[in-house]
């Protein structure tokens, strides 16, 4: 399974046998300590009961779950033997929505619960009608009427960020006040009233169904080719700061545009960046604005155009080299590592290489093994390079600008599935001189109980998970790494020293991954502060399969389950 949650052994414990005695003892100590802290903070005693249940129970998976939506204040105590009563159902990929509702069909998906007589009772089910409505709104063309590349049919169709709604939510979990004609309430009722719903639900990477409903009503999709057009005003959002929203695509496009106009040495090179407006439309409009000398369409040779870019950088230009995906950068990796990364050092500063390599990294949807690998760990291992991984639009803008201005070679890892996601941007981020510091992580969500580190798309997952944990009374701190190299070890360590627990989250392969480095760093520097072994969540150690069900299993997913591990964390 792609999720890194440890398997349960016969006793329902999720720790290696040899560590169990020590673990249990530590657990007792920590329990006492935490007891006092939590009591003082006014949390409920019911959580301890929860824990006791968990420790005694063999089949602990499904008994302690309760719906995050059940109540906002004190979670009710589930009794042993109760079936799952409430669950939150999140959306699913287009076309497969029905499957998760009708659990019967998901035989291959061991993540989905055993209760198969649960959800999706019939056509008149309000949930289903909402889903149907959402599906009807999906289309294959963008607003210009251009047909999309296969796999990009829903780019721009959903201006919101459905699966990352958590990002928009108030930290306390209050819902947005958007008028969606009561669909949402209807859905909520349907969910709350349903009994015997499976406790384990998989949140898909794609649309959050609720999000679709909300976004459809509130936003209009606009064609985006420049900063001005890219900003979507959503007046009804209850945010205190600027009400502007921007997709990651527009953020990158605007950053490139501004940097190219500010410095005539900046130029873009890559396959399809010019006439085609960019394989993912990131460079849309730039050829028309800056001409073919500065937006260079290249023949299909990554080794070639990377080499040319490095040579141009040697002589003083500032190229931005686009790889259609970073998987293809392997054909040019010698130029990236042996020439770009090492030249400044080997020439003792005589040759500097102010180049940016950018492109989508990591898994997309249904593209198979050769298009889905995450290269953060590979490039992050190499001295001489700087490696950045933005998440939100603000990250994308700020970090890309910083990368272009940086005199060192920068590998800029974007994510294809994030391109269409919208995020709010502050007024300061829209300024053309905006940039974010390289090497500083961002604490997306403050917490007390566990630190979750993530980068790129996984930040959204971490935030979702944090939301879910919050309903259980676990306050998770989510760190958006932003920069893989240099890694912001001080922020990570400070956070772990505060929370005493660490979960690292990444999409790439587990061995020698980013999580491994973070774990080593934390163990080296904050060992005494750790109350539990570091948990790594990574993709499965297999080449990415194509079949949708296997693909789902090969990458981390957000589960609402009472992972016993996490329950131990709650006192």
């Amino acid at each position, binding site marked *: 399974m792609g999720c890194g949650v440890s398997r349960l052994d016969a006793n329902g414990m999720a720790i290696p046998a040899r560590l169990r005695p020590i673990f249990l003892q530590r657990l007792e100590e920590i329990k006492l300590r935490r007891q006092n802290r939590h009591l003082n903070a006014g949390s409920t005693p019911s959580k301890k009961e929860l824990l006791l249940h968990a420790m005694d129970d063999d089949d602990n998976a499904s008994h302690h779950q309760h719906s995050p939506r059940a109540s906002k204040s004190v979670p009710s105590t589930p009794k042993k033997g109760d079936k799952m009563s409430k669950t939150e159902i999140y959306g699913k990929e287009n076309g497969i929505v029905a499957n998760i509702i009708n659990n019967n069909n998901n035989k291959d998906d061991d993540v989905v619960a055993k209760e198969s007589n649960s959800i999706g009772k019939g056509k008149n089910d309000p949930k289903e009608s909402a889903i149907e409505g959402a599906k009807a709104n999906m289309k294959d063309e963008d607003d210009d009427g251009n047909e999309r590349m296969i796999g990009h049919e829903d780019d721009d169709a959903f201006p919101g960020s459905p699966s990352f709604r958590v990002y928009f939510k108030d930290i306390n979990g209050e819902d947005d006040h958007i008028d969606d004609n009561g669909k949402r309430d209807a859905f909520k009722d349907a969910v709350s009233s349903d009994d015997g719903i499976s406790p384990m639900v998989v949140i898909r990477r794609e649309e959050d169904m609720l999000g679709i409903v909300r976004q459809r009503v509130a936003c209009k999709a606009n064609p985006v080719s420049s900063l001005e057009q890219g900003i979507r005003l959503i007046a009804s959002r209850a945010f205190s700061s600027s009400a502007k929203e921007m997709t990651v695509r527009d953020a990158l496009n605007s950053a490139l545009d501004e940097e190219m106009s500010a410095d005539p040495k900046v130029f873009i090179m890559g396959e399809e960046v*010019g*006439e085609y407006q960019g394989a993912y439309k990131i460079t849309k409009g730039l050829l028309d604005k800056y001409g*073919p*000398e500065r937006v*260079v*369409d*290249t*023949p299909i*040779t990554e*080794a*070639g*155009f*990377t*080499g*040319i*870019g*490095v*040579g*141009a*950088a*040697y*002589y*003083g*230009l500032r*190229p931005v080299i686009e790889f259609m995906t970073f998987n293809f950068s392997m054909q040019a990796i*010698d*130029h990236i590592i*042996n*020439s770009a990364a090492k*030249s*400044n*050092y*080997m*020439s*003792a*500063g*005589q*040759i*500097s290489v102010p180049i940016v390599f950018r492109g989508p990294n990591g898994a997309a949807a249904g593209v198979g093994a050769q298009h889905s690998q995450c290269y953060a760990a590979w490039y992050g291992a190499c*001295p*001489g390079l*700087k490696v950045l991984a933005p998440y939100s639009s603000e990250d994308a803008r700020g970090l890309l600008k910083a990368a272009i201005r*940086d*005199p*060192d070679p920068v590998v800029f890892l974007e994510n294809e599935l994030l391109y269409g996601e919208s995020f709010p941007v502050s007024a300061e981020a829209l300024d053309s001189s905006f940039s974010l510091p390289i*090497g500083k992580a961002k604490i997306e969500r403050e917490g007390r109980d566990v630190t979750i580190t993530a980068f790129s798309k996984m930040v959204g997952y971490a935030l979702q998970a944090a939301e879910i944990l919050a309903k259980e009374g676990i306050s998770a701190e989510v760190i958006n790494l932003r920069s893989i190299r*240099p890694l912001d*070890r001080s922020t990570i360590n400070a956070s772990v020293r505060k929370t005493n627990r660490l979960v690292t989250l990444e999409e790439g392969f587990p061995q020698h991954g980013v999580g491994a480095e973070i774990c080593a760093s934390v163990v080296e520097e904050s060992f005494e502060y750790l109350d539990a072994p570091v948990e790594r969540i990574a993709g499965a150690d297999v080449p990415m399969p194509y079949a949708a069900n296997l693909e789902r299993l090969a990458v981390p997913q957000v589960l609402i389950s009472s992972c016993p591990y996490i329950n131990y964390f709650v006192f």
Partner: protein
Amino acid sequence: MVFRRFESARAGEAEEAVTYSTSDDDDEIYDAENKAIDFPGGRVAFTPQIKFISESPDKRIPCYRVLDDDGYPIAGSTYEQVDKETAVKMYKSMVTLQIMDTIFYEAQRQGRISFYLTSMGEEAINIATAAALSFDDIILPQYREPGILLWRGFTLQEFANQCFGTKDDYGKGRQMPIHYGSKQHNFFTISSPIATQLPQAAGVAYSLKMDNKEACVVAFTGDGGTSEGDFHAGMNFAAVMEAPVLFICRNNGWAISTPVSEQFRSDGVVVKGQAYGIRSIRVDGNDTLAVYSAIRAAREMVIREQKPVLVEALTYRVGHHSTSDDSTKYRPLDEIEHWKTARSPLARFRKWVQRNGWWNDEGETELRGSIRKQLLNAIQVAEKTEKPSLEDLFTDVYDNLPLNLHEQEKSLRETIKRHQKDFPSDVPV
């Protein structure tokens, strides 16, 4: 620069100079031999006869040569005249290069440096090319072109500094021997992976075009390097982007132990030029004057027309590939001897220079003695000079020293303080 891609697919608007035999009134005349049709890429005449282009031409592309084996100018040869000063300087540089190679090679054999790579047999290519170029021309070498640095004023001491990795090395001791680099001499630091410099040269040229200087980029490779993917990418790109790059291929017959017959099946490297739309010439690489003239002419073309040109210089690698190689294992000794003595570029050029009355035997002995002394001195000085200090371990990884390296350096210094006596005394802190 680049015509828009979509337009180039439009029929009937051919851009290239290659002509096909069509008559003027294409549309009217129906000639069985010379009908022409439009395709993406241009108009092309077609023929009803099935005919394959031969894999090898009837005659190999001839080689441009000016002096014969005895140093006499060949009757009817056209070449650029060389005055006494240039000729003598060229000859002296060739001798210096040869002696430098011999002595540094010996130094490696004695264990004083870890590695060395000679240019024996290719002195004419090194020096004549350097003399034909201007100082502003940017060099992206492979590794057998130290003569260019020598010509441009790199001293023997500076060569020794790099080989010994002392604190005076411009590379701060970061590179293995013979990986010279000097920004002020417009000589890019040598990079070990083969042929990576070729697409990079196109990039440098692309950047250089903006400067509007009377200069071009010169990229070297060997016969082995033409098999690399980067060779294709670099040549193709330079042609498409119309980058002012002069590609010089030193076809010395051997790529470590791989002879050219196993490297490619084409007629050498010169024919590959046409495949990319690049003008090319084959020249006798052991003939100093021929190389000089050819490079002068090629450089002129590159700068004036802002297009790449390929020069294939035929020669022979007299020495081993490097100090890690023993070429007697894969080629006959008498072949090596033959090229070392009978076909030596120095001997040939010396005959011509001496015949002009510009050089004599006394000058020769005196020069050789003096160079030898200078080199031995340079080596001794370099051996005694301090190595680069500790901070050079950490600088230049990035433009500015990042925090983690700062901390590592601090931690290293603390460790050194704690274990003073265990720390090697020859490393300055």
